[in-house]
């Protein structure tokens, strides 16, 4: 039962997970940049990683929800 419930419920949030991972990447990059005074470098690279991670995570959730 637990195996059947969990993936279904996680699938509800695929859309927001994608967007919030992109957002989280840019936010983390912005924070690191303001810490080290290196403005566009980490913002852009972490943002890119966030986009990549978001797409990857959404793909994983949709193709193999058991793993999540």
């Amino acid at each position, binding site marked *: 039962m637990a195996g059947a419930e969990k993936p279904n419920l996680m699938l509800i949030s695929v859309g*927001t997970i994608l967007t919030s991972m992109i957002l989280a990447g840019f*936010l983390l990059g912005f924070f690191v940049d303001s810490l080290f005074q290196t403005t566009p470098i980490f913002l852009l690279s972490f943002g890119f990683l966030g986009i990549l*991670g978001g797409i990857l995570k959404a793909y994983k959730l949709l193709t193999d929800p058991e793993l999540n």
Partner: protein
Amino acid sequence: MSASEGSSGGGTVEYIQHHLTNLCVGDCDPVTHKAASFWALHLDTVFFSYALAALIIIVSWRLGRSLQTDVPSGFQNFVESILDFVAQQVRDTFPGKNPLIAPLALTIFLWVWLMNFMDLIPVDLLPLLASFLGIGYLKVVPTTDLSTTMAMSLTVFALILYYNIKTKGLIGYGKMFLFHPFGKFVIPINIVMTAIEELAKPLSLGLRLFGNMFAGELVFLLIALIGGSAAIGFGLLLVVPLQVVLDLAWLIFHILVITLQAFIFMVLTIVYLGMATTSDH
């Protein structure tokens, strides 16, 4: 549910902006009435969320004193069915046993649902009553304020961190950051990716609830504007029924939305905490 004060106050944009402005005290912008720094408090959000929390406490306290074991009353039956529903969700999604999870899930479900329910009260009613008391701005739905939803999701995030460190240990939790998505050859990228993934959990929790409730409130405001923006006269015969029908339809649909959002917030909290308490990732 009319927008009469909006049309006299200078148009539809002002009406909507006025309704979406919190009662801000402390360090607020004098023109926009928005918080200018961290040291500002949305008094209406705090008031309504605490009042609803007090309502939950008082009702459950009163019910707890008059529990019947042989023939439960209708209300006790109703509360028991909610309890059973939440307990079933926890059993289904949470691995192992933890005395905190079920009460936490129940609290989140009831509190978020009640805060969302404020959306179904006619949009102009409480602000109008408040304006008689001299309160200029009032936003009655606490979950349409990002402060509420992010505060709740950050609390959940703190619990996620706590349980992660408690079950895996500080080193075990750190290891999760090192080798997670891409194996052991790109450790710096792994650290960033896992950090982003962890940070995305509270962000998605808070933003989803805020977004859904804010959009719902905005639709209620737009429907309220239909009647208010029509000129007094023959046009009202057409416009008022339209407003009533649209408002009723959106109201009924919104009952589903508020329940679903409260449910999702609760379930994802259970799922995330369940992930945090399992040692093998």
